[in-house]
């Protein structure tokens, strides 16, 4: 956030300078952080809050991850006990999983925003064009975020970590269920698929953004129509690939388990996080005086979406849970038993943060216009959806030895910092108000 704020301040004065400045800052703090982490080699999972800013956390978390693996190998020799080894493997996975959760979380925000953005175009929405630049800026994280997620997947594929149990040939050899799935679940095909999803999304995002900037100088609606068609195409591509992405990247962590509405479930989560982020960033920019054309009605509409999609998420969460829970088929229900026994607090806690809290706070029409109310609810929703991803990923990778410690928090701060930096940096690249969009006048005068 600090980095992002500095990037923003500087950015409005001189964009190129900022990038250098912030990079230098990151680099200098990075060195400092590495030294710091080097002293704590042995303490893989110390519960100690590192102070300082994002950049420091950054190197620390990666250092922690490496050391986690090293320390793990060192200890492996001394413990023959299988149980300990089991926990050890889980702990080795922990920093990786923490990194993966955080990386995916911020990636999914930007993906959700892209979907929302495309829907605005495809629906020819009249209220939202004043927010387009904010949305575009958030989707700028799609490229770095996508690359990071892809790199993590490749590292899993290279057996640098054991996030995906089906990638381990030994496990597969003794597991008939996974053997039957190898036609789909194998490393090369998995990575090719990931590349297709990511490439497709980034490609569409690139075109949409380029057209949107070109539209600023446009005299007719030709480019708008082009973007309309592109968005419609993207949405078709997106809903198929998003669904497969959720199977690949998250559901396959538990390769025995499957849920037919999992794609929707992940979609609801990424969609509501994305909309919440749009609302938070818009309100922040507005409070700084950059978005004076955004009025309370726009915030009201975003809050309505936050409210609605939160309920949608809960609906899917519950549909998934209840059907599996009461059909009581062993290999399916085990997924929830693990979550209820080992992850009771986050598993049920997220119902409060993701459902009760937004529903009660955003129910009143007037509250949706109170900016700090929306921000507060938004922060709770984002935390709740982080927990959601956490509970989707962690049980399969870490099992019962979970807690939210340094790796989790620092990974969050790392990607949070990178996310804010990329987003605010991208905000500085173009005027904050789109021009040439046929709906811009309607949007400026939008009044609920």
């Amino acid at each position, binding site marked *: 956030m600090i980095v992002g704020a500095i990037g923003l301040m500087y950015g409005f004065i001189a964009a190129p300078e900022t990038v250098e400045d912030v990079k230098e800052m990151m680099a200098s703090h990075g060195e400092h952080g590495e030294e710091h982490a080097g002293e704590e080699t042995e303490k893989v999972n110390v519960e100690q809050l590192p102070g300082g800013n994002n950049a420091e956390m950054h190197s620390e978390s990666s250092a922690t991850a490496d050391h986690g693996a090293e320390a793990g190998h060192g200890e492996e020799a001394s413990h023959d006990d299988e149980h300990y080894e089991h926990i050890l493997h889980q702990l080795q996975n922990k920093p990786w999983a923490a990194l993966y959760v955080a990386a995916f979380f911020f990636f999914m925000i930007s993906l959700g925003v892209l979907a929302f953005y495309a829907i605005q175009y495809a629906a020819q929405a009249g209220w939202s064009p004043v927010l387009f630049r904010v949305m575009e800026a958030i989707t700028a994280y799609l490229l770095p975020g996508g690359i990071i997620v892809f790199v993590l997947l490749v590292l899993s594929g290279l057996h640098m970590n054991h996030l995906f149990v089906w990638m381990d040939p030994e496990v597969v050899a003794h597991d008939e269920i996974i053997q039957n799935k190898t036609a789909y679940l194998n490393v090369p095909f998995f990575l090719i698929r990931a590349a297709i999803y990511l490439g497709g999304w980034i490609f569409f995002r690139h075109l949409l953004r380029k057209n949107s900037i070109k539209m600023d100088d446009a005299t007719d609606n030709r480019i708008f129509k082009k973007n309309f068609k592109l968005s419609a195409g993207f949405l078709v591509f997106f809903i198929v690939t998003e669904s497969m992405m959720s199977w690949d990247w998250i559901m396959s962590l538990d390769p025995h388990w499957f849920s037919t509405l999992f794609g929707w479930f992940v979609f609801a989560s990424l969609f509501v996080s994305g909309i919440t982020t749009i609302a938070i960033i818009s309100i922040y920019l507005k409070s700084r005086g950059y978005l004076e054309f955004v009025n309370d009605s726009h915030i009201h509409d975003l809050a309505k979406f936050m409210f609605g999609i939160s309920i949608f998420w809960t609906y899917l969460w519950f549909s998934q*849970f*209840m059907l599996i829970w009461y*059909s*009581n088929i062993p290999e399916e229900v085990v997924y929830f038993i693990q979550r209820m026994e080992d992850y009771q607090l986050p598993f049920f806690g997220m119902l409060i943060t993701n459902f009760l809290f937004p529903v009660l706070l955003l*129910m009143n*029409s007037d509250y949706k216009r109170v900016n700090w109310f929306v921000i507060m609810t938004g922060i709770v929703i984002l935390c709740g959806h982080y927990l959601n991803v956490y509970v989707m990923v962690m049980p399969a990778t870490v099992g019962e030895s979970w807690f939210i410690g340094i790796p989790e928090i620092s990974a969050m701060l790392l990607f949070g910092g990178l996310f804010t930096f990329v987003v605010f940096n991208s905000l500085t690249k173009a005027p904050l108000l789109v021009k040439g969009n046929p709906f811009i006048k309607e949007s400026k005068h939008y009044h609920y």
Partner: protein
Amino acid sequence: MASKVLHAIYRDDDLLLQAVKQIREARYHIGEIYCPFPVHGLDKAMGLAPTRLAITSFMYGLVGLCVAVAMMNFIMIEDWPQDIGGKPSFSFIQNMPAFVPIMFELTVFFAAHLMVITFYMRSRLWPFKKAENPDVRTTDDVFLMEVDAANHNIDDLTDFLYKTGASEIKLIE
């Protein structure tokens, strides 16, 4: 009650909205407006108090939720304990997920129906009631505004209303 009212007829909702603002600025009192369809922003322009229907709806929802909880608890747990989903725990809280659809439905059912009934009662509507509509055309394409004329010069008021865009004006004694 005001004995004299003017019925001013407008043919366009934007015109009506403009007229409402002008009439209120000129300190005339608008009794009621009959529209063929809801006009966006009319309640604010007329200065009506915001509706409290939403609050009643929320409370009805809570009532519905409580009824559902009490009902399911009595039927499925106390009166005739059921083994639900092969999990014979006989406790309400552990079987609660199975009751969520019922709880949800009854919440919606109570909120919706009681809200409609409340609305009917507040607006004094019931089946087979004779319409209070002063002019049948307001159910088709015409907006009718009742302006209180008791303490005003009728001619001045009529002129003023024509200026705001009224297409016909009738004096009702």
